[in-house]
């Protein structure tokens, strides 16, 4: 009764057929990507101190759909929210992958280093606690690259906000502290947009390392300031501001909008299949910026 990969693809029918990355790439590239991914790179997705929101966001990918990502683009060996296995059977997958060919390490959530890392225990092996810090030390040196998915993995995120009770930090700082040279790509956002995550993976597979800005973010997605491209920018220049959230005919600056401090492309990409985006429906909190929980708060005031 077991299903082979082939059977599974057949079952997927319309779902898996017709890979389309058209939102980000020209169609011919989709085929190239599939070819490149013929030996789909193994991916270990670890979760540190976080909320699983970036994993949920990943599921929101539309082109390609998440089933296509899992079956045609990457070989997701370990992901706590999705994988079938639990316990030592699950942790064994990490050991096995680390021993094998090159893999990509995706991290979601921060790495708390207070109390010897015990504020985030991800499992138990041979009767001993494994902390996220332990797991990163074991896997990151052997990974081809580390993808820091979301602001927590990139810069520490909400748990690193003052007074940072657990001494949480992002992957790049943690690797530097331990002298690990594996390249890190930061894909911040609270959560990260699915296109930013999938797009970065696709870029790495097709063209290698993307161009990064000073905060380690791909300029492809984080290269432009929201405020400079905001559709409500004209209102700002004319000093027309929304009085409150009922008022949509104006710039959101006086409601606390942090668009001037945020660099991402949500203004053209939209969220959740484009049905809405932060400034259109409310205000921006600059969730793609390092330490935004401290530097950008309070979120509903710009005074």
């Amino acid at each position: 009764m077991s299903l082979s990969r082939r059977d599974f693809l057949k079952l997927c029918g319309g779902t898996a057929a017709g890979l389309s990355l058209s939102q980000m790439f020209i169609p011919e590239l989709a085929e190239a990507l599939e070819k490149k991914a013929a030996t789909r790179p193994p991916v270990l997705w670890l979760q540190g101190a976080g909320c699983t929101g970036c994993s949920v966001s990943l599921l929101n990918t539309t082109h390609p759909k998440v089933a296509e990502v899992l079956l045609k683009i990457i070989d997701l060996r370990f992901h706590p929210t999705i994988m079938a296995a639990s316990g030592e059977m699950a942790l064994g997958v990490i050991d096995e992958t680390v021993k094998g060919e090159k893999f990509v390490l995706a991290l979601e959530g921060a790495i708390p280093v207070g109390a010897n890392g015990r504020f985030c225990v991800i499992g138990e092996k041979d009767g001993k606690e494994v902390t996220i810090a332990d797991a990163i030390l074991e896997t990151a040196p052997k990974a081809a690259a580390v993808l820091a998915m979301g602001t927590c993995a990139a810069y520490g995120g909400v748990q690193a906000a003052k007074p940072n009770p657990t001494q949480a930090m992002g992957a790049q700082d943690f690797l530097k502290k331990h002298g690990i040279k594996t390249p890190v790509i930061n894909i911040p956002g609270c959560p990260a947009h699915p296109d930013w995550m999938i797009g970065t993976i696709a870029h790495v597979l097709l063209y290698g390392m993307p161009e990064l800005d000073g905060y380690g973010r791909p300029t492809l997605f984080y290269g432009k300031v929201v405020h400079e491209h905001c559709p409500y920018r004209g209102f700002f220049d004319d000093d027309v501001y929304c009085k409150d959230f009922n008022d949509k005919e104006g710039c959101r600056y006086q409601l606390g909008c942090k668009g001037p401090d945020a660099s991402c492309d949500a203004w053209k990409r939209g969220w959740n299949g484009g049905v809405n985006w932060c400034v259109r429906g409310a205000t921006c909190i600059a969730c793609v910026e390092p330490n935004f929980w401290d530097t950008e708060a309070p979120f509903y005031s710009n005074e």
Partner: protein
Amino acid sequence: MAGRRQALKKPVKIVIDPVNRIEGHLKVEVEVSGGKVVDARCATGLFRGFEIILKGRDPRDASQITQRICGVCPTSHGTASVLCLDNAFGVKPTTNGRIVRNLILVGDHIWDHILHFYHLVALDYVKGPDVPPFVPRYDGKGIYKLPKELNDFGVKGYLKALDMRRIGHEMMAIFGVRGPHAHGLVVGGATVVPTTDAIVGYLWRLKEIEKFYDEIYLPTVYAVAKYYPEAFKFGVGCKNFLSYGVYPLDDNYSEYLLKPGVYIDGEDRPFNPDQITEHVRYSWYNDSISGLNPKEGKTPVPNLNKPSAYSFTKAPRYDGKPCEVGPLARMWVANPVLSRHASEFLGKKGEVRMRDFGERAFSVLGRLIARAEEGWLEVQAAKKWIMELKPGAPVYKKAEVPERAEGFACTEAPRGSVGHWIRIENKKIANYQVIAPTTWNVSPRDDVGTPGPIEQALIGTPVPDPKNPVNVVRVIRSFDP
């Protein structure tokens, strides 16, 4: 005779860490004797310190910060937070604002029930394909019992559910602005003023999802129930239920779609938040903060050297009793009419209600059925609410941050009751306390040593093969910790 031989064997300790396909980091330790679980402990492995971080911040920011407690149910925390702030600021949203908030929360519930059943639970009953991340998995005789046709239907459903979940999330984001982590929830109301295109976009997505519930999700849940009837017998739990109530139907919050209430020791009681206390004897916090109502609650940085402790989670109790929260608790307390699929399953011609399941409701399958049925009820309600919106009418009332105030509010996340408590001093947060749903269900023992709801539900779970403790994870996942 095999039973007697097993009973004579030495008890076996099984540690499952991590328990995957849940949100967060959970370790479960069970002792198995005579082929059944005789003792269980649940330990959470993550502490982030939200209540410490919230101190001294602008109270309005609480609705953003607390959503990050859980990326699967952020709008539930967001909703609890803005209701709590409304309470402290002394403001109530407009009618349109109340309905928009309901549509945001119900949108998240509707997709999260799908995610829970298909992407977290189903692989314990439906055998997935032989590729990662669906392998490795527990395997062995009698674990996967669906006939091939139904199993294929389950796998197809898993894939279809990925699309439906995404569409549900889009529906939420139409009014919630984006998901996860909605920007559309603020003290005083909501931020998206309904327009015709928003209403139409929400409604048509909802109709697509309604079809999925009716033709795929509900039938699959009842098919699983048919082929795994033993799962009506284990995972019983404490049989105490707590529901804070959710989806206010009028502007005075006097009526809810799912009413608040408590069911303890076989008796229905009204809900009173003063009856809640949090115990920490078995949690990594100093005992001096034990037994407090969250209004007075404290959360220091954990003391990891405490010998009696085994979890970061506190043990909340209602009137001193552990209580299960979640869809089963809500549906048992409110006891609404269920779908036609429930009538068919129970072999009844007319309407059936949750309590018609009787003792069978207190089980793994009882929880899965309650959840799917609640989703169906929510879809029907959302269809009504969306048509009650007035395009262009205000959704927000401005309110100033008070110098000093206290606030409390509670609502329901898909996985259970969520309560927020705030104290404001000098226009800043002086104290903020949260009891998340998982805190109730996954709680460790309390100060008198009574195990938490999941710990109790694990007792008696059959584990014929300690190498494949699939029933243990079935029990745990039925709670969606």
